[in-house]
């Protein structure tokens, strides 16, 4: 076996009381590609930030070539031969390729940049990857894939021994992705260790020799790819353990369709989506991360554009076809990222709770908001949802995650829509808060609302759903009943068509 380049031993890190990494250990050998898998928030980025010198670990050791090292800054990491190719491509688009490559250390003469020298060196750096772009090309005129190559070329300038790729394919086309994989294979031949962070499982089988699966700050499994069957990795990523039985519930499912989506398409994202959402049911939208679940919710609610498709609302015996932009009149949308999209962070609990229902709070005398009614309504749902606040005027930014999520839910309860879309409604919440949210979802369904829930945590999803739709790469691949077992769901999500065809 080749040389052991990197060992991380028992790395721990705490953020504001939350244990982000609970003693993580990883080995990586020269000339191999190691996948770091796991859902969002599992601790992948934290671990790599520690390796890259961005943040210090609370405890644990890093060994490079069996020598213990401490990495205090990104610059030190580079000196140790560790470089990062970031997910968000960090480049200056108005400058040329050569200028971007040498931006941190321009070779100068009398204070002037040696333009010809950097251009020549840029050509060489790109040639190492087997590509030629004129070095004076502006980065803004390159495609995302080409920009990434420049980024990799920049990473290679310091002759690194370890290169970390953080979700490198997220903005690439299929062809660019294959080219990237070729580049990675080429790097491995030269003895470089690759650490490949992703949540797209099928990529890993193409280019990685070894994998570690992180969940909730812990390594839940790992080893050589050839010893890890696809299904097992899915099981580890989603945290579905067969010994943990979920109490079987009776399906609440009714046959009265409220929302009907037919032939919804969005080029490259969603393909021929057909959904019927019934009154009083919780429909679980299941699929791996990147299968198009969130994109589907956003397309139906008009937050992202669609190419074709019909959306119909059946209400009080009448059917009407509506534009995606108008679905919000019927649908209460709880997005996966409450801080970025769900809340008005600098505003008060009361203002956030009233937000979707301001037209419903008008005074009877004139078209102004009735302050007393607004307070009463907000108080009602604060109590009903058991939200812990110091007062209605508390700024939501200062609330805990669970309470913030409840504020978002409370906002829609005030509006009282007939349909709810909930994207990862329990993400990042503690056990108690999760249970409460679960209870609320159940109560809403009992009261007759139709609820579409997305969750990456299979058991979470199974604890609320009456029926499942399984998604894979922008398509709905299966519809399964309430009684479906965990194994079955995992199998359905894992049987990626393109994966078989590979």
């Amino acid at each position: 076996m080749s040389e052991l380049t990197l060992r991380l031993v028992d790395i721990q890190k705490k953020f504001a009381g939350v244990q982000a990494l609970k003693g993580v250990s990883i080995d990586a050998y020269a000339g191999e590609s190691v996948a770091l898998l796991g859902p969002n928030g599992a601790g992948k980025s934290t671990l790599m930030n520690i390796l890259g010198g961005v943040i210090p670990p609370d405890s644990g050791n890093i060994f490079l070539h069996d020598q213990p090292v401490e990495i205090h800054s990104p610059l030190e990491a580079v000196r140790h031969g560790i470089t990062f190719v970031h997910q968000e491509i960090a480049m200056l688009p108005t400058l040329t390729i050569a200028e971007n490559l040498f931006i941190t250390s321009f070779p100068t003469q009398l204070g002037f940049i040696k333009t010809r020298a950097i251009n020549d060196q840029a050509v060489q750096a790109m040639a190492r990857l087997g590509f030629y772009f004129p070095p004076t090309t502006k980065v803004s005129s390159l495609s995302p894939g080409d920009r990434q190559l420049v980024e990799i070329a920049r990473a290679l300038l310091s002759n690194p021994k370890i290169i970390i790729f953080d979700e490198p394919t997220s903005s690439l086309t299929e062809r660019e992705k294959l080219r990237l994989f070729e580049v990675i294979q080429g790097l491995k031949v030269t003895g470089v260790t690759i650490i490949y962070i992703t949540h797209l499982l099928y990529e890993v089988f193409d280019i990685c020799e070894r994998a570690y699966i992180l969940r909730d700050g812990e390594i839940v499994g790992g080893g050589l790819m050839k010893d890890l069957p696809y299904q097992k990795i899915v099981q580890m990523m989603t945290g579905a353990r067969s010994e943990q039985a979920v109490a079987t519930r009776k399906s609440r499912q009714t046959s009265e369709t409220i929302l009907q989506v037919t032939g919804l398409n969005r080029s490259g994202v969603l393909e021929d989506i057909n959904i019927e959402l019934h009154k009083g049911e919780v429909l679980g939208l299941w699929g791996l991360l990147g299968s198009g679940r969130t994109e589907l919710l956003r397309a139906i609610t008009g937050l992202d554009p669609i190419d074709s498709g019909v959306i119909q609302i059946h209400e009080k015996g009448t059917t009407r076809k509506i534009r995606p932009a108008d679905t919000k009149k019927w649908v209460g949308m709880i997005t996966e990222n409450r801080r970025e999209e769900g809340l008005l962070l600098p505003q008060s609990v009361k203002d956030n709770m009233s937000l979707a229902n301001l037209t419903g709070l008008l005074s009877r005398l004139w078209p102004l908001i009735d302050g007393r009614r607004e307070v009463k309504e907000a108080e009602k749902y604060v109590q009903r949802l058991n939200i812990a606040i110091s007062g209605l005027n508390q700024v939501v930014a200062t609330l805990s995650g669970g309470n913030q999520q409840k504020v978002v839910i409370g906002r829609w309860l005030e509006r009282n829509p007939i349909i709810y879309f909930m994207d990862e409604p329990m993400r990042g919440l503690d056990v108690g808060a999760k249970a409460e949210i679960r209870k609320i979802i159940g109560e809403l369904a009992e009261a007759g609302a139709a609820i579409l829930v997305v969750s990456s945590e299979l058991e979470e999803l199974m604890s609320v759903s009456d029926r499942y739709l399984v998604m894979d790469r922008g398509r709905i691949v299966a519809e399964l009943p309430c009684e479906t077992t965990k194994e079955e769901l995992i199998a359905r999500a894992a049987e990626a068509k393109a994966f078989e065809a590979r």
Partner: protein
Amino acid sequence: MALPTQKTKRNSFFDKKWLNKNLLLTVLPYVVLVIIAIVLAIKTPHFGTFRNLTNVLEQSSILAITAVGMTCVLVVGGIDLSSPAIMALSAVAGVLFLRATSGTLNPVTGAVAVAGAIPNQAVRAILAALIMIVVGMAMGAINGFAVGYLKMIPFVVTLAMQFICLGAATWLTESVGIPIDYNLNKFFVDMTQKRFDYVPLDILYAVVFVVIAYLVMRRSYLGRWLYAAGTNLKTARISGIPTQKVVMAAYIVSGLTAGIGAIITAARLLSASALIAGENAVLDIISSAVVGGVSIYGGSGSPVGAALGAVLIGLISNSMNMLRVSYDLTLMIKGVFILAFIYIYSLRKK
């Protein structure tokens, strides 16, 4: 994984201290305002007179009204550089209408020699005022459409609109001031320039307007939507708020205030021209809002604050004038004042 961005642990003592400091910093500009007023009242013989004080307020009233419009735009995270230009175009349109419909006066007898299209002064005046308001709102609507629906950048859109309106106003007036014949249009002028128990009507209008603006911004759903859209457009959109319409509405309100400003200014100057709003007007308007605590990043600020900011700016101009400070020095002092206030506000948050 996102790093935690907030520190929730903050003990209550610190919390309280923070609140008091913020409150103090909010009140400070107005304390300064009162102190300046008192010092000037002692130092200069004319400052404290009722006449001068109403003068200051009268001068500030147009600024206050347009600053309220600017506040709406700033709250949704935009900016309106075209406000004074829109005011000029509205004024020109309205005054041209007055001229065209008033007829002419016989200089000897004082009787209307040639009857205009609309003989009744009141009808004429109200129509002229309506024209000014409609022109202002229409121009604001174009700004709002470009920003809200076409997703163009507010700075550029309103800069272009400034040129368009100034160009149109200059073209319509052929570069000269269009006078209002007071004898033929007493009603139009008196509508804003008369006094009600010694208090000039335009001050009353400004106060009423600011009160209405306060109610609309704080208590109507449109106002709350403005704040929501300015705080986080994505959240607002997901919550079902028609954000494009809301953004457009903000610019229409700004255009409306330019139209109201045009009515008062034309009546006060008895004329209209492309230069009616005065030099640096847009800077005064934005300064008033910012000094009044309106955030240029959107999401916060009150119309009352902006109006008080306008009074403060007006007071600085007036007091410098009283102290016989030259115009160029006045500009510099104004700039320093604005910087100082903005610095104080920057202390308020974090």
